[in-house]
C-alpha cells in the first residue's frame, strides 16, 4: 500500500482501477431507478461520472493517508496541531484561565448577540454535548459500547412530558427526577448485561433501546403513541411569564448551566478512583478484576452515571421543544451521539465537545447538504476508525515524567 506514493504511474493506474470498480459497484443503485407500477425507468447517467471522479481522487487521498499511518506507527507522540496547541494552552495557568474566562463570557453573551434561531441551534448543540459526555462515560471511559443510549434520553423526556401533563409537575422538580430515573434505568439495564461485553453488549443495548421505542410507540393509552405529546410546559422563572425570546434565552442559560455542571462532574469522575477503575476495565477486564476492582460495581456505576446525564438532557429536550414523539428517539439518535463521542475522541471531554460542535453545528449551517448528513456521519465514522482511532482530540492521561539528563523516561 505504501508503494503508491513513490511511483506516480502506479498510483494513477491503481486509482483508475478503483474508479472502474466503484463505477461497476454503484452502477445499478446510482444510475437506474425503476417504477414497477407505472413501468418507467429513469437513467441518471451523470451520477456515474461523479462517482468515477470522486473515487479516482479519493483513492489518492486514501493511499496517502494509509502511507502516513504506516509511517506514524512507531511514533508514539502523534498529536495533531490543534492538540499540541491545546496542550500548550493548558500547561500555562494564566493562559488557561484567560481562555476559559473568554469562553465563559462568549457563552454568556451568545443569546444576547445572536437571534432566536441561532440560540435554538446552540441549545440543541449543548444538549448533544451533554449527551455525548454522558455516553463518553460508558463508551469512552469504561469501554462498554452502548447503542441504546437514546432510551435513557427518551425516558427523561417522556417522564417530564407525562408528569407535566397529568400532575403539572414543574421543570425544576423534574430535572433531578429525570436524572434519577435515568440512573435507575441504567442500573436496571446494567444488571442483566453485566456478563456481556463488546459486541454482545452492543447488540443487547441496541435491542433494549428499540424495545423502549416500540413500547413508546405502541402503548397508546399512556404515551399517546406515534402522535406524541404536545404543549409541554417551558420552565418558569420564579412565576414570571416569559415570551418566546425570553424563554429561549432562559432555556439556553439553563442548558449552559447543566453543561458546566456536567463538565465539572465528568472531569472529577475521570480522575477519581472510579474513573481509574473504568479505564482499567476498558483496557483489560480480567486483569482489572485480578487487581481487586469490583467489576460489577464499576460497570453498574458507568451505566448509571452515563444514563443520569441522558435523563437530564431528556427533560431539557422536552422542555425546549415542547413536543415529543417516539420518532425523536430512534436508533439513529443513538448513532449520532455515538459518532460525536467516537469522532471527537473517546474518553476526552474536549474531544466530545469538539465532536458535538462539528457534527451538530456544521450541518445546520450547510443546509444544502443536510440530506447528506447521515451519509457523511457514517463515512466519517469509518474513516476515523481506520485512520485516527483515537478521534480528533485524543484523551490524555496525566503523565508524570522523570527526566534523566538527555534521555527522558516516562511513567504513567
Amino acid at each position, binding site marked *: 500500500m505504501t508503494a503508491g506514493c513513490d511511483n506516480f504511474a502506479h498510483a494513477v493506474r491503481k486509482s483508475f482501477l478503483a474508479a472502474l*470498480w*466503484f463505477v*461497476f*459497484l*454503484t452502477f*445499478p*443503485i*446510482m444510475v*437506474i*431507478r*425503476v*417504477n*414497477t*407500477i407505472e*413501468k418507467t*425507468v429513469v437513467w441518471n447517467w451523470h*451520477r456515474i461520472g461523479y462517482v468515477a471522479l470522486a473515487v479516482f481522487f479519493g483513492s489518492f487521498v486514501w493511499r496517502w493517508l494509509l502511507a502516513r499511518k504506516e509511517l506514524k506507527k512507531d511514533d508514539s507522540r502523534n498529536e495533531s496541531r490543534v492538540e499540541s496547541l491545546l496542550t500548550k494552552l493548558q500547561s500555562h495557568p494564566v493562559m488557561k484561565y484567560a481562555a476559559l474566562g473568554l469562553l465563559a463570557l462568549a457563552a454568556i453573551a451568545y443569546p444576547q448577540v445572536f437571534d432566536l434561531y441561532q440560540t435554538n441551534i446552540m441549545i440543541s448543540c449543548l444538549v448533544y454535548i451533554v449527551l455525548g459526555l454522558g455516553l463518553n462515560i460508558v*463508551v469512552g471511559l469504561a469501554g462498554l*459500547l452502548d*447503542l441504546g443510549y437514546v432510551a435513557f434520553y427518551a425516558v427523561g423526556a417522556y417522564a417530564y412530558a407525562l408528569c407535566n401533563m397529568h400532575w403539572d409537575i414543574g421543570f425544576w422538580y423534574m430535572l433531578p427526577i429525570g436524572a434519577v430515573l435515568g440512573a435507575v434505568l441504567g442500573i436496571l439495564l446494567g444488571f*442483566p*448485561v453485566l*456478563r*456481556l461485553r*463488546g*459486541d*454482545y453488549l*452492543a*447488540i*443487547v443495548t*441496541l*435491542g*433494549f433501546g*428499540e*424495545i423502549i421505542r*416500540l*413500547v413508546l410507540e*405502541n402503548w397508546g393509552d399512556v404515551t399517546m403513541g406515534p402522535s406524541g405529546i404536545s404543549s409541554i410546559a417551558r420552565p418558569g422563572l420564579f412565576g414570571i411569564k416569559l415570551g418566546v425570546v425570553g424563554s429561549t434565552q432562559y432555556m439556553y442559560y439553563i442548558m449552559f448551566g447543566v453543561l458546566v455542571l456536567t463538565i465539572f462532574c465528568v472531569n472529577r469522575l475521570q480522575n477519581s478512583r472510579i474513573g481509574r477503575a473504568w479505564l482499567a476495565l476498558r483496557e*483489560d477486564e*480480567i*486483569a482489572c478484576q485480578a487487581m481487586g476492582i469490583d467489576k460489577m460495581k464499576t460497570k453498574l456505576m458507568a451505566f448509571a452515571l452515563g444514563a443520569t446525564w441522558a435523563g437530564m438532557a431528556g427533560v431539557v429536550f422536552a422542555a425546549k421543544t415542547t413536543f415529543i414523539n417516539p420518532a425523536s428517539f430512534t*436508533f*439513529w439518535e443513538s*448513532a449520532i451521539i*455515538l*459518532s460525536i463521542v*467516537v469522532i471527537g475522541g473517546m474518553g476526552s471531554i474536549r474531544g466530545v465537545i469538539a465532536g458535538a460542535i462539528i457534527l451538530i453545528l456544521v450541518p445546520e449551517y450547510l443546509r444544502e447538504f443536510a*440530506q*447528506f448528513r*447521515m*451519509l457523511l*456521519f*457514517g*463515512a*466519517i*465514522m*469509518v474513516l476515523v*476508525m*481506520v485512520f485516527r*482511532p483515537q478521534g480528533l482530540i485524543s484523551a490524555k492521561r496525566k503523565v508524570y515524567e522523570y527526566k534523566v539528563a538527555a534521555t527522558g523516561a516516562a511513567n504513567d
Partner: protein
Amino acid sequence: MEYFLELFMGGLTRGSIYALIALGYTMVYGIIELINFAHGEIYMIGAFTGLIVAGLLTMLGFPGPAILVIAIVCAIIWAAAYGFTIEKMAYKPLRNAPRLSPLISAIGMSIFLQNYVMLAQTSDFLPFPELIPHFAFIDNMGSILSSAELVIILATVASCVGLTLFIKFTKLGKAMRATAQNRKMAMLVGVNVDMVISATFIIGSSLAAVGGVLIASHIGQINYYIGFIAGIKAFTAAVLGGIGSLPGAMLGGLVLGLTEAFATGYVSSDYEDVFAFLLLVLILIFRPSGIMGREKTQKV
C-alpha cells in the same frame, strides 16, 4: 388447527429467510470475530439490485421464472461485490486494532450504506414485482402454504445444504474451518487468510442477497430501511443458535421465525419486533453461547 398451520408455515418462511441472512453473520463472526453490522445492508442492497433488474426485465417482456433467476444472479453478483469491498475498506485496515474499532467502523458502514441507498433511490417504499408464480398444489393447502413460501423454504434448504457441503468437502471450505479455529496457525500452514476472509464475505453476502430478493418478492415492497430490522433479527437468529456455528444459525432462524409468528398470531401484532428483541436479550443473558454453541474460555 388451520390457523395454527398457517402461522407455522408463515413462521417457517420467515425463519428460513432469517437463517439465510444469519449464515452470513455466523460465518464472518466465526472467522474474524466481528459482528458485521453492515450485513443487513447487504441484504437490502441485494433486494434493491433485484428490484432494478426485475423492473428492467419485466419491461422488456421476459417470462416470470426467468426474471426471478436473473434477478437473483444479479443480486448475488452485486451484493458479493459490496461485501468484498466493505471488508477491504472498513475491516481489513482494522484487523489488529482494539475490538471496539471494527465494531464502530461496521456501524458507520451500515449508516453510510443505508443513506447511500436512500439518496440514490428514494426513502419511499418501492413496489416489488411478484416474481414467484402462483401454482396450485393440493387444493386446501393453498391457503396455508403459498407457492412463494414453498419456494423460499426450498431455496433456503438448498442453500444451507450446499453451503454445508462446500464447507465440508472443498479445499476453500477446509481453509475456512482452519482459519476459524486459529488464524495464525492457518497462516503458518500456508492458508491465504486474506483470501479466506474475502471468500467468507462474498459467500455470506450472496446468501443474504438470495434472501433479499426472495423476501422482497414475497412481501411486495422494499425500502432502504429493511436491512436494519432484518439484520438485527438475523443476528438474533445467529446468537440464538450459537454464533459461529452453521447448523446453529439455521436452527436459530427457524426458532426465531416460529416464535415471532406464534407471538404475533396469538398475543399481539403490535409488538411484533419487541418479541424478537426480547428473545435476543433473554438469550444473551441466560445462554450467551446459544443453543449449539460451545462455551469459550477467555484468553488474557
